[in-house]
């Protein structure tokens, strides 16, 4: 209850901004996939978890961190493509809710498989980057790096979508998936590429998260609901909206957690989300279709 407008409040606020970068990156991949393929990967956070384990083992196996991170990104990108090929493609033409549920099955599978393969104990890379101290405030370098790289990743995706031929095709298919086939574009291949990119973004997020968080099989349940909330709040498929929503939600969490107990920060964020959706059902930045 000791919530005052002092330096610690400012610290919480700024830490919220740093968290937002990471959450925005997580939301970005999911939004890309929704916007293009029109499916929600409910197991998205579990793909991040797979990436985190991959990086963990690569690093402990002797690879330098950057190489391990690269391995994680490639691993999850592959996982994304496989997920699309094996699981999403067979149900693409069935009711949309099936696509959400089928990835829910994958959520169970990945979580359980991770428990079986890696055990339930918390794993940590043991990399300490230290922290930046400014005027009594302390910010861990891991978070600052995560923020910067998340922004760079988002910018990279934006450039890819705007400037490359493949990116243009992906934007086109997001606009009208029926017409695109008439233009001679192979939408199946595009979906696969998009899934891989979405997975790659999850892998990038995993690389940033292993520096900040312990790895355990249930970590997806901690982040998954947050990511969905951010995507819906920003308007599913709207990447800029997702970015803004990430900043709003992370402020609730950061400030709420610093003033009250951690759960209350999250609880208020979820409450805010529900109210916001009732006021703007299409999301804060969605356009009514």
């Amino acid at each position, binding site marked *: 209850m000791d919530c005052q407008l002092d330096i610690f409040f400012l610290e919480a606020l700024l830490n919220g901004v740093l968290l937002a970068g990471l959450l925005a990156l997580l939301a970005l991949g999911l939004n890309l996939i929704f916007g293009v393929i029109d499916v929600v990967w409910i197991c998205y956070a579990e793909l991040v978890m797979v990436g985190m384990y991959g990086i963990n083992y690569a690093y402990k196996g002797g690879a330098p961190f950057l190489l391990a991170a690269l391995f994680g990104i490639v691993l999850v990108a592959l996982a994304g493509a496989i997920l699309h090929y094996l699981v999403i493609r067979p149900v693409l033409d069935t009711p949309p809710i099936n696509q959400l549920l089928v990835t829910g099955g994958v959520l169970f599978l990945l979580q359980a498989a991770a428990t079986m393969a890696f*055990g339930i104990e918390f794993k940590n890379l043991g990399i300490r980057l230290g922290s930046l101290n400014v005027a009594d405030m302390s910010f861990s370098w891991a978070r600052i790096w995560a923020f910067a790289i998340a922004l760079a990743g988002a910018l990279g995706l934006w450039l890819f979508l705007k400037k490359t031929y493949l990116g243009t095709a992906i934007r086109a298919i997001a606009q009208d998936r029926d017409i695109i086939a008439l233009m001679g574009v192979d939408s199946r291949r595009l979906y696969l590429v998009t899934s891989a990119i979405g997975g790659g973004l999850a892998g990038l997020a995993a690389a940033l998260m292993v520096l900040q968080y312990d790895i355990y099989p249930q970590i997806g*349940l901690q982040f998954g609901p947050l990511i969905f909330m951010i995507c819906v709040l920003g308007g599913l498929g709207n990447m800029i909206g997702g970015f803004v929503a990430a900043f709003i939600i992370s402020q609730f969490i950061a400030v709420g957690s610093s003033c009250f107990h951690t759960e209350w920060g999250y609880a208020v964020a979820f409450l805010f989300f529900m109210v916001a959706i009732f006021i703007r059902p299409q999301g804060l930045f969605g356009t009514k279709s």
Partner: protein
Amino acid sequence: MTSLRAAPAAILGIAAVAAIPLMVHVAFPASEKYYLHLLIQILLWSFIYTGWSLMGRFGLTSFGHGAFTGIGAYVTVLLWNFAGLPPWIGIPVGVVAATMVAVVVGYPCFRLRITGHYFALLTLALTEFVRLCIVGLRDYTGGSLGTQPKRYGDGVSLLALQFEPERVLAYYIAFALWLFGLYIWWRVDRSMDRYALDAASQDEDAAASVGIDVTREKLKITALSSAMCALGGAMFAQYQMYIGPDTIAGLAVSLNIVFAVIAGGLYVMLGPTVGAVFTQLLAESLRVAIQGSATLRDLLGSSALALDQAIYGLLLVLFIIYMPKGILGTAVDWWQRLSRPRQPGIGVAGAANAGAVKAGKG
């Protein structure tokens, strides 16, 4: 007509389920308690699953029912532990509280036509919100460790609705609850609301244009469904004598509900029950198999705990791709295809589908 034909089979089926404790007593006198425990859990979950399927079958895929089971369980237990109110008061209060939450969240959802992905994700947020509140109120709820209802006397009491040591009694309480759930399902299936909701789930505009108050219909079924889940959650707490934010509330429970029903069959009366039997038996038989076999134990080690979840997840993926109607739904389809040439246009009699959607159309 169909229901009349099905009546003898239904009575036979009910009698058979009612006689199970006797059969268990004769067949497995040594491990009677264990088998009854398994059956009680199946029946209690079946009731909760049936409650969810009332909404799920009309395209209202809610991930929010973990919130309702949680509210029902926690309100009942907390009123007993801290206010001394027996569950006879606590359960109705919990059910009303859960129903109110459902209506407060449901009304704007249906009014604003939040459906599909958005509805699923919004209700998912509700579940998380309730779970976080439970964890946050740790002075009362025990936080993430959970809590126990205060034991009254020797643990068997009418006043405190505690019956856990008396397994046969507990079985018949769960059995009655299960029958009650099936009765509600049957009543909904025969009601006009069902046709209204069927129409609304296919095309809301068309349904509204023929005079169906879509918001009202959806709200009615949501209230009923959430009330059932809250009641189920409360009864589960009374039987287990333990509640935890992850065992009776939260996303894990929501997901379990949704997937068990889909595995069993969303559109048939006994589908949720089959889902409960399937999931409980899968988990239990794997556990027994691993415990009984040294080779498996050595091979899997501590990871054996998650094996059922892994198989479960894999099966769900396969079910949704290849068998979206679930185990029972697919079985009913086959049965009808086999029997149709002989009895065209008449639904199949049998306890398994006494009020099934397909039979209802016959």
